[in-house]
């Protein structure tokens, strides 16, 4: 299984970290945010990196999952897992219906349409007070239990969110290396040629849109239970743009690129806090510098450079 050796090491590290640093704030608290963001970035990368279809509305699906869980469990007393499934079903239908007309658009127009979609959903979260609790959101979600074990501590959440994140990374790696993944890349490379190879491009785009939305929705449900609280600003268009930035920062089209991009953008604010008023400025600066000097994205550029160095050394010796 050479194909997944990288993944295996990555998984081992993630799972061992809390054992080595059991009470470290960065592991058990920040780690949870990172896992959610990594999952979202990886799912967005399927659409953006593989299929080449930009989405500035990914946070909407994340939010729909979170709100479905919150509303269904609190207002209707549904079992959390059942609520999660209902949320996923809702997003499945919604994203499927929307995918065809939206994905007919290209480039900036697609960006606009997905942005609009995200903002409409966000406005709904803010304005439908009776259902969503308005800007204050909803708090007090019931505890999620897995096989009878309540997930009620940071460390338990660590393993739940970590597992889901690893699963999404594994799916993403598998897809990249498969018939479906190649069809996506083909759509990205040349839609006309993809069609001539017998690929139903509209269907392929629509499926990955739905798949990616579903991954985000479930992440949203888990996030809501972990935070024990939902409020609209976690799902605003700013967050959608942040997700896009994560994907591009790490390296469009690379699963581990998305992982790295999400990791860096989640950890940066934590580290930059010490700069107080300069935080925003430095954050912007770092983002710019990375993209200027590594325009293919941090991970992809570094990997390519490492590969060049290695091949030089091999040919030199």
């Amino acid at each position, binding site marked *: 299984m050479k194909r997944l050796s990288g993944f295996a090491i990555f998984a081992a590290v993630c799972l061992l970290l809390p054992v080595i640093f059991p009470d470290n704030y960065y592991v058990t608290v920040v780690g949870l945010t990172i896992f959610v963001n990594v999952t979202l970035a990886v799912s967005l990368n399927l659409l953006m990196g593989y299929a080449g279809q930009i989405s500035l509305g990914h946070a909407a699906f994340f939010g729909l999952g979170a709100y479905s869980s919150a509303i269904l469990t609190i207002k209707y007393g549904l079992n959390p897992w059942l609520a999660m499934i209902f949320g996923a079903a809702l997003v499945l239908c919604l994203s499927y219906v929307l995918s065809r007309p939206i994905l007919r658009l290209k480039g900036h127009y697609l960006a606009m349409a997905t942005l609009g979609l995200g903002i409409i959903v966000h406005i709904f979260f803010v304005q439908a007070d009776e259902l969503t609790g308005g800007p204050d959101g909803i708090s007090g979600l019931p505890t999620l239990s897995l096989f009878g074990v309540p997930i009620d501590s940071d460390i338990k959440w660590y393993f739940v969110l970590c597992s889901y994140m690893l699963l999404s990374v594994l799916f993403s790696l598998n897809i990249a290396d498969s018939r479906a993944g190649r069809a996506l890349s*083909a759509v990205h490379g040349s839609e006309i040629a993809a069609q001539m190879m017998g690929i139903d491009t509209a269907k392929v785009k629509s499926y990955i849109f739905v798949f990616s939305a579903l991954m985000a929705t479930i992440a949203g449900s888990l996030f809501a239970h972990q935070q024990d609280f939902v409020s609209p600003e976690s799902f605003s268009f700013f967050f959608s743009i942040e997700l896009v930035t994560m994907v591009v920062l790490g390296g469009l*089209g690379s699963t581990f690129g998305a992982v790295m991009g999400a990791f860096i953008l989640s950890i940066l604010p934590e580290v930059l806090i010490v700069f107080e008023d300069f935080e925003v400025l430095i954050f912007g600066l770092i983002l710019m510098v990375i993209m200027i000097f590594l325009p293919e994205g941090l991970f992809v550029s570094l990997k390519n450079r490492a590969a060049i160095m290695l091949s030089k050394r091999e040919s030199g010796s």
Partner: protein
Amino acid sequence: MTLLKVKNLEKQFGGLKAISDLSFSVPENIIFSIIGPNGAGKTTLFNLLTSIYKPSTGSIFFKDKEITGLPPFKIARLGMSRTFQNLQVFLNMSTIENVMVGCHLRSKAGLLASAIRLPSVIREEKEVRRMAEEALHFCGLSEYKDRPAAGLPYGLLKKLEVARSLASRPKLLLMDEPAAGLNDTETRELCQLIKRICESGITVLLVEHNMTLVMEISQRVLVLNYGRLLAEGPPEQIQKNPDVIAAYLGE
């Protein structure tokens, strides 16, 4: 037996008739070339045949089935494939991955099965790789298989498009100016390749400017001029046709 039949085909762009009242048939297992001066409508015809453009009027039959207006991927599913004048290689993939896309129609793993990587997917993946290697070998590209396509020289990219199309095992292969931009050696190689493709049981429809090549390998030649059929027949006959000579030399 007739593989492709075009009846009263017409395509208008604004006021301009790019193709007018064109009818012809392509029999199975031959190399059929379409020639004509620049702007005669050859690529437009290809785009009509593969449904990238919708015809204004007229109909197209492939394997006795009407395919007019079907989406391109459905036409591909029926066994038609093509290469492009302006290359449409997937530059974001490696050489072999490009060809593996060509195997799309010969494999069936879906998105979910791929994500979970079912055992059947793993098996199929091996098979697809083997088929792709076969097509690469056929086109003489084996040594480049793991290179990123973006790094290949122009001549190889043209071959890559052919390999990709072949991997889908088409009945009919449309080749749009395969020799354009190639040097003499490369053209000679191409000539051999096209012949071998035809010998393997694939009908070839060729748009080409290189007359030597066309006359050497084609069984039938069709001449387009201003979107109209000027002449059609075996190469020797076409070469002697006064209308064709006039069209090429200009009035």
